[in-house]
């Protein structure tokens, strides 16, 4: 089973330190880890550090990976003006590092990713003509089609309507369970984090403020200290934890 742990990981751009001493327990395949924190906390940098795109001390320990390229990453920015159909843009993500010839297995993988995300209706469209939400789903498909062991998603729901937010997170839950994939997802919606993720890491100002089971991490104290809002975690009539925000501090 794939596992990922951060061992005193730091990151810097040139001389500016962005992440400092990130230390976590080991996360395992099948889990969804929420990466939480306010704007500019260092969430995207953490992803880039995992991918080796940013320098820094410490070690990102990835073990038990079986895929050729074990980590797939969906960046936040999805704006694009290339003259490519959606289908081609997903195929492209699949084919990186491979030969020019496309095999039937590759096409199958592309169709599967497109089906998983429910964007069959978009396959023939030009990616430049899509809405922000549609681009986000295509971007998620591009990450998924690489059949990774670890999937890193940077705010994948930020441009989606409520239905698609829930649908995407439900698909992620199922993929983690079915394929034993480890999914790390940066989220701003703490309600979604409570409902859909197992573990949570909270970043603020480049340091790790809390880490552990999501329900233990997302507390009124966290809301107050990190997010600067007054709030409560209540139980709904079905017993699920529910986030109630009373106001900004």
């Amino acid at each position, binding site marked *: 089973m794939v596992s990922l742990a951060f061992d005193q990981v730091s990151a810097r751009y040139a001389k500016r330190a962005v992440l400092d001493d990130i230390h976590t327990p080991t996360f395992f395949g099948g889990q969804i880890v929420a990466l939480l924190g306010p704007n500019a906390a260092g969430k995207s940098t953490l992803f880039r550090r995992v*991918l080796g*795109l940013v320098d820094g001390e410490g070690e990102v320990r990835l073990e038990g990976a079986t895929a050729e*390229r074990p980590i*797939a*990453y*969906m*960046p936040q*920015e*999805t*704006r*694009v*003006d*290339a*003259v*490519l*159909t959606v*289908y*081609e*843009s997903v*195929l*492209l*993500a699949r*084919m*990186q*590092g*491979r030969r*020019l010839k496309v095999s039937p297995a590759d*096409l*199958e993988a*592309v*169709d*599967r990713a*497109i*089906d*998983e*995300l*429910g964007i*069959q209706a978009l*396959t*023939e469209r*030009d990616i*430049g*003509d899509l809405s922000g939400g549609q681009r986000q789903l295509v*971007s998620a498909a*591009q*990450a998924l089609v*690489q059949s990774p062991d670890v999937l890193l998603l940077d705010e994948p729901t930020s441009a989606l309507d409520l239905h698609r937010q829930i*649908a*995407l997170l*439900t*698909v992620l839950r*199922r993929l983690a369970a079915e394929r034993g994939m480890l999914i790390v997802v940066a989220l701003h919606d703490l309600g979604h984090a409570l409902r859909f993720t197992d573990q949570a890491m909270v970043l603020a100002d480049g340091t790790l403020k809390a880490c552990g089971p999501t329900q233990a991490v997302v507390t009124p104290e966290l809301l107050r200290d990190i997010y600067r809002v007054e709030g409560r975690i209540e139980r709904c009539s079905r017993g699920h934890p529910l986030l109630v925000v009373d106001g900004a501090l």
Partner: protein
Amino acid sequence: MSKTALETPAPGRVFYRSLVARRQLILAALFAALCLSVCVDLALGPARFGLDEVLAALVSPGSVSDQLRVIVWDIRMPVALMAVVVGASLSIAGAQMQTILSNPLASPFTLGISAGAGFGAALALAFGVAILPGSVAYMVPINAFLVAMLTAFAIHLLSLKRGVTIETIVLLGIAMVFIFNSLMALIQFFASQQALSAVVFWTMGSLTKATWPKLWITLSVLAVSIPLLARHGWALTAMRLGDAKAESMGVNPRRLRLEVLIVVSLLASISVAFVGTIGFIGLVGPHIARMLLGEDQRFFLPGSALCGALILSVGSILSKMLIPGTVIPIGIITSLVGIPFFLFLVLNQRKSAW
């Protein structure tokens, strides 16, 4: 997002296969048009031979008169093929510059590589200055090539500076064009009357000086460049999704940009060095290919090559036909024909290609 979608036939795959088939057809049609154009190009010239005679000279050179054979094989053939090779080279160079810089205006012409070559050539033509000592026979093309490569190198060095974005690179190129244009004006001011006309003629671009050796050199560079670029096909296509996306797919944008810039500078410099400044091929060729074939490099790369080759080959025909008995410099033709055609395509396209 249903699980059952897996059991139903996949329409995406079907669509993709028809897309590929359509593109292969377009590439084949472009190739056929190019062959036809080369034949017509060979049949035209001051010495009047029929198409049948020219075809006979092509198929069995031994069976025709010496005069016909020499005219077709030694005079017209290098020119006709040079048009194809230079057209393909400039168009590929433009296509990949547009790809790595994500800018529709990037081309050997707009990045100052052609202007640099023009300056190098003018140095040789006006003052007999050979940048590389001892290269008197090929002084003009070698000068042109060296200055063009230096220009590309300078642009690359400047682009490495902190805070230089890909948009700035294009501006740097335009600055290069202005610098070389001023230097060129200076040379023209001091040059003798005879040298002046040579410089002006060179900057107009002409295929008439093509010879077999020049053709072979240009062709070898093209033949080496195509596989080098094709090897990065998927990565280059990914570059059009932006650096962040390309990086997320495992591409190293900076390294790829450098590698491709070297290859395309070589392609553009060698072409311009032998035939002079031929503008708009590197701009129009890739744009037409993009509209016909999209930006998947498996089709965009050969498509750009074929479009560029076809445009220059047709240009070569027109340069002989427009004023009977006079071969108009090809650079003038490509600008005259290229710009309206380009405008027509831009104004009539359904989809947005930039």
